[in-house]
């Protein structure tokens, strides 16, 4: 039996493994192998024998938490792959597109108050998205509000029997109120993804 099979040593290495859970598996296994190797050598040279010797060797090695924290400090933060960033930007842009699309469709066809739900969701996704500049966010918000505005104006016309002389222009205006958010949605999708598809981001 190797002297690193001692229960105290097993417990110690298990504690290091637990504390070092944040390390990559490769780095963690390397650390554990280094420590086990150290313990084997140190025990062979340790004057005290038995459990006392094991305890002395482990006490000099130190607190598993401190060792794990040092190892985590040496590990450079995992670079996020550009592929992942593209996927995330596309998913976010599609969420904005779908939610604002739902909002404009509902605003025209049903109760504008129901449209508020996807509208708020879509705007939240838009403003939380780091990939858009403020200008894009303002454009997106204005476009998202257009169908709602149209629905409200239309409801007022119906309620008060107003005649604004829209007449034949009603359908083109309604189409524009729906098409505008769709067009802006695609613009947002494009502006989110375009910078990621350009030349690879230069490493810092």
């Amino acid at each position, binding site marked *: 039996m190797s002297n690193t099979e001692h229960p105290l040593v097993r417990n110690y290495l298990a504690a*290091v493994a637990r504390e070092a859970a944040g390390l990559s598996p490769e*780095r963690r296994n*390397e*650390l554990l192998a*280094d*420590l086990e*190797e*150290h313990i*084997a*050598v*140190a*025990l*062979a*040279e340790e004057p005290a024998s038995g459990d006392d010797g094991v305890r002395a060797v482990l*006490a*000099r*090695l*130190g*607190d*598993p938490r*401190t*060792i794990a924290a*040092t*190892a985590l*400090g*040496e590990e450079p933060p995992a670079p996020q792959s550009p592929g992942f960033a593209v996927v995330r930007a596309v998913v976010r842009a599609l969420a904005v597109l779908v939610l604002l699309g739902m909002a404009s469709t509902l605003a025209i066809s049903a109760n504008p108050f129901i449209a508020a739900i996807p509208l708020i969701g879509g705007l939240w996704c838009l403003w939380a998205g780091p990939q858009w500049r403020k200008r894009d966010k303002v454009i997106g918000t204005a476009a998202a509000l257009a169908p709602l505005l149209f629905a409200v104006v239309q409801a007022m016309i119906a309620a008060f029997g107003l005649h604004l002389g829209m007449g034949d222009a009603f359908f083109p205006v309604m189409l524009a109120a729906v098409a505008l958010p769709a067009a802006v949605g695609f613009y947002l999708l494009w502006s989110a993804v375009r910078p990621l598809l350009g030349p690879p981001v230069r490493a810092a």
Partner: protein
Amino acid sequence: MEPDIAGKPVAGKAESQLRKGVLEYCVLAILRDGPRYGVELLETLGAVNVMATSQGTIYPLLSRLRRDGVVETRWQESPSGPPRRYYELTPSGHAALKEFIAIWPHFRDAVDHFITG
């Protein structure tokens, strides 16, 4: 100061930050005179009080030095106990140490200049 698990006083912030900055060059300097195995290297470091730290924290550092190519290791049988893994400087390790040795006196003087005003 409260004692840590090894019974040594817990280092203050200034001490541990300074040690973090210079420890790897102390390791390179110890290896300048020839290969050492892990336990031996740690005993040499631990013999100087200010560099004494929980021994296990040196292994992540040694692992990085290996990855950076400033040290390399080779196994050697021992007449007593398990084989030892010896660490030795590579040419780039020698160069890194040389660079540190050149800059250190300036650094030390600059700090002295400010703190002994």
